[in-house]
Structures are given as structure tokens and as C-alpha cells.
């Protein structure tokens, strides 16, 4: 994925999150993650990304 593709993904995500609405955005993102994880095919990567995405949240015990 080059920079232009990434920018396109960023924009379509923002639009889709607004489109599904505040009440559905969380479910929408969870579905998207399952789809991407299934398509990605590498369980170790997925596990690492799950942890990386949570790094900024200052979790107890993290």
C-alpha cells in the first residue's frame, strides 16, 4: 500500500464511520477488523497490531 492508497483508506474510513453513525461505528469497526484479520492470514501480526493499537491508552498492567 503506497501513501496515496493509505490516504484513500483513511478518507473512506472517515466517511463510512460518519455514514453508519455514532451508534453503529464501534460495531462497524469491529466487523472491519475481523474481515481484515481473516484476509491478512497472519495471526502473529494481528495479535501484535491489537497490542500496538492499544499502546496509547495507558492500560492498567500495561
Amino acid at each position, binding site marked *: 500500500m503506497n501513501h496515496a492508497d493509505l490516504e484513500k483508506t483513511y478518507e473512506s474510513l472517515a466517511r463510512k464511520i460518519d455514514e453508519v453513525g455514532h451508534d453503529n461505528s*464501534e460495531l462497524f469497526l*469491529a466487523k472491519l477488523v475481523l474481515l481484515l484479520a*481473516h484476509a491478512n492470514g497472519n495471526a502473529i501480526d494481528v495479535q501484535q497490531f491489537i497490542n500496538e493499537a492499544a499502546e496509547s491508552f495507558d492500560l492498567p498492567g500495561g
Partner: protein
Amino acid sequence: MVRPAGRSETDSLYFTYPHFDPPSAAQKNAQQSAAVAIVGAGPIGMTTALALAREGVRSVLFDNKATFNDGSRAICIARPSFYILEQLGAVAPFLEKALGWTMGRTFYRGQKILEFHMPDSAEEKFRPMYNLQQQYIEQFLWQSVNASELIETRWQSEVTHVEDVSGGTRLCIRDPTGEYHFDADWTLACDGAHSQVRKMRGHRLKGENFEGRYVIADIQMDHDYPTIRRALFDPACRPGGTVLIHRQPDNIWRIDYQLKDDESTEAAIDENAVRASVASVLEELGYNGAWELEWWSVYTANTLALDDYRDGRVFFVGDSAHIVPIFGVRGLNNGLADAANIGWKLGWVLNGKAGETLLDSYTPERRAATLDVFANASKSARFMTPNTHGWTLMRDAALSLALSHSFAGELANPRQMTAFTYSGSPAVLSDDLAFSAGPCAGAMLPDVKMSDRYLSECLGEGFTVLCFGAELAQGITEACRKEDLLTVVTLPDTVAGTFAAGDNSAYLVRPDMHIAGRWQSVTAEQIVQAWRDVTFHTDLV
């Protein structure tokens, strides 16, 4: 357990509960002690007694009721349990009455998202699962128990105390005519989830309680749908909740529906509320005909177990030792496996065919099986009744995605019960790493259809050695002394593939059909020694 207004506890639409009298004075005088006392004549107590009788061991069953169980409501019997029933000579009425099934369907908002198939083929002797009401299970076991000369049953007899005495246990029994003592070398507590023996002995179950509550109800209706387990997620009749539907014999249907957090249990089990909820489920199923309510109850999922299933000369068997969630139908099946396990082991020890150390393998084998059940059932329970925001969100994401993607539907697969592999047990030898395939040491023996019969029908009453070459088989027979109780079976080449076996390979199979050990290449002397090892013959010298 509640029945509709105007009907007593055992007033069923379709089943006549028997009435059992307490024992007579003559009966009690005739037998004041036994090798084994079994507390609780439910399905686990009766199966344990039959397993001991198979080994020629006499037992006395005590039960505080005057009829069969009316509280516990198991309906699913898994394939491994059918092998247990067959070994005990009790399977015929089960096969005749029970409804075999092989598949389940899961729906989300009315749309099918998963159809799962349990392993089955024309090569299999039994179906992967059967549905049968618990009172029939008890009735069919009772037919065998009642016919056995080695089993005495004392109904209306409550065990009020279990005391350790030198070399055994002393029970205090209370029946309608008074109290008396009964001495037993061993006591087996098969008295269920609310075990009094467990309380008397000061033991507690430990583990987790899940929050989801279900109403479970049986109804009678003329509903035309095959025996397929149906699970409904977020259906119109229970928005946000789950519903399970199972078919049983006699036009009886089991309906389980989840209660919402804000629904009080008390209001939910009111007869009118149950009728209204059931009616809405039936509407969702497209059933418009007449139906009758048989009984209902409320249920919460738990994963609870004892740390040790043994306390001196007292063993805990079935729900007295562990409580598992309904999802995956492992309560009864896990208990039947306990019963078969302690039955042959205690039988062999009492007959002097195995050393007493064999009994130390009961807890590790059966408790490990329960922990495995917990792991699987907890997954199912979290999917059926997620109790946090995260579990709920991911469950909903999987269901929503499953409408268009079958991989996500697999997350809703309930992972039904399979036999547990006893690896690492003291009564199982280390697996031979020279094998590249075939069932490993500790696994339940896979059955194979041969030309005229099934492999399971060739097994001996005790341990069996499966050989794949005539020379080794002959050698083992010659190496056995009179006291070495081994049945030697030579299998045809057509079966060798299933076992990844060559001419000098062998599998040693225990009386409970679990593999005690296997060897890619072995001598007759090694086999005989292995048998002596797993039966702890050094204890006997």
C-alpha cells in the same frame, strides 16, 4: 422446576414416574455392609453401579427420593456415552427411543448464518449425539440396575453422615422406619450438584459463575422439523437475547431462552410470562398449532469443580465433583465418563487385578477432562451470554459479519462434546513418538467398521492388545502368565492404516476403551510388562 398450575411435581404429560418403596427390615438385615456404597441413584450413580457390576463387584445404591429425578434435565447423550452404555449392556432401549442427530443451525435476526455438522459417516456405529429426556435415561438404566444381582437399591434412604473408619467408611442412613449404620469399604458420592456428601465432608466447588440467565421449558407440540439443534441470536421474539431449540422423543421440544438483565427471575418464571415467551418463540419458528406446557425452570451457567475428586475412601463422581454450563451438552456426558472411569478402576482394585495406586489416576484424568470442558463451555457461554461490553461487541460483530461471510459464522460453532484424551495420566504410558499418525496414548479408541463387525465389538472385558501381525500376537499370548488378563486381537491389514501400524506395532486398550499405550515396534515381553505397569502390579506383590 415448575409445572403448570394444578399439576404435581411428577404429573407429566407423557411419562409415568414409578414409585419406589423404602427397603424392608429383612432386606436391610440381609446386607449390612458392602464393598461399595453409592450415594445417589441418578444416571451417574446407576451407571457407576453397572460399571462395578461389570467387574463383578457388589454395590448398594442409596437414594433419598421415591422416584426418578425431577430436577436435573439433561437431554443430550454424546457418542462416547453410547459406547459406555453399550459396554454395560444397557444401550438397546436408548437406541430404540433416543433421537440421533448430526447437525445444528444458527440464525441471526432470522437469517441462517451457520450450519454445523458433527463428525459422522456410515462407518460410525453411533451418531455423534442423541436426544432423550433424563427420566427415560434413568428408566433405561434402572431396567439394567434392577435386573443385576450385584446391585441393591434402597430408595427413600437418605445418607446423613459419612465417617472414616479403619479400612473403610461408615454411613448413617435415615429412611421412613428409622436410622441405621452401613459399612462400605468405599463410598462413591453420585448425589449431584447439591451433593450432601460433599457438604458433609466439608468440600466446596470452586470456579466461575456466568451472569446470563435462561428459562428452560419443555413443551409438547406436533411440530414438523427434524432433530437439528437450532440457536437463534437476536431473534424478533427476544431482541438482544438468544434462544435454543431441541427436539426430544414423544413430540417434546426443549426451548431455552435468555432473560434480559432487567427482567427479574421471579417475574420471568410466572406461568403466564413463560406461556407468552414460549408463544412468541413458536411464532418466530412459524408454528401455529396447539401446544402444551410440560414444565419450566431457570438456569445460570457455572464452571465449578472440586480440587480433588477423592477424599480418602470417598470418591466424587458426576455433578457432585463439577458443574459445567449447558452449552455443549457436557454435564451428563462428563458424569457418565467419570462413572465408567471409577467403575473399572475400583473394580480392578477390589478384584486384586490392579494395584491400589490405579485409583490415584481418577482425579487427574477426570478433573483434566472437566477443565477441558470448562475451556470449551466458557467460550460457548461467552458467545451465548457475553457479560462485558467487549465480549458483546465482538460477538455482535461476528454475527453481523456472518450474514455474508461464513468464516465468521464458525465463531458461533458450539463445539459439542468429544471424548477427552488422558495424556500425562499415571494410568497411561508415554506416547511412542515413532508414530506419525493414528490415535495417541490416552485417546479414546476410534471405532472402525470391519467386514462383519465393529472393532469395538472385538475388545475383551479387560485390557486388549491390538496387534497387526500374527507373530507378535502369538508371542504375547505365550508371554502371558495365568494372571495376566490380556485379550489379544489381530487386526486385518485394512485397519492398520487407521492406526499407522506395521507388523510389529501394538496398541494396548484399557477396559474403558482409552489407549493405555502404543508402540510402533514392540516385543511380546514389553507388552506384558506395560500391562503390569499401567495396572500397578508392583502394589500387588
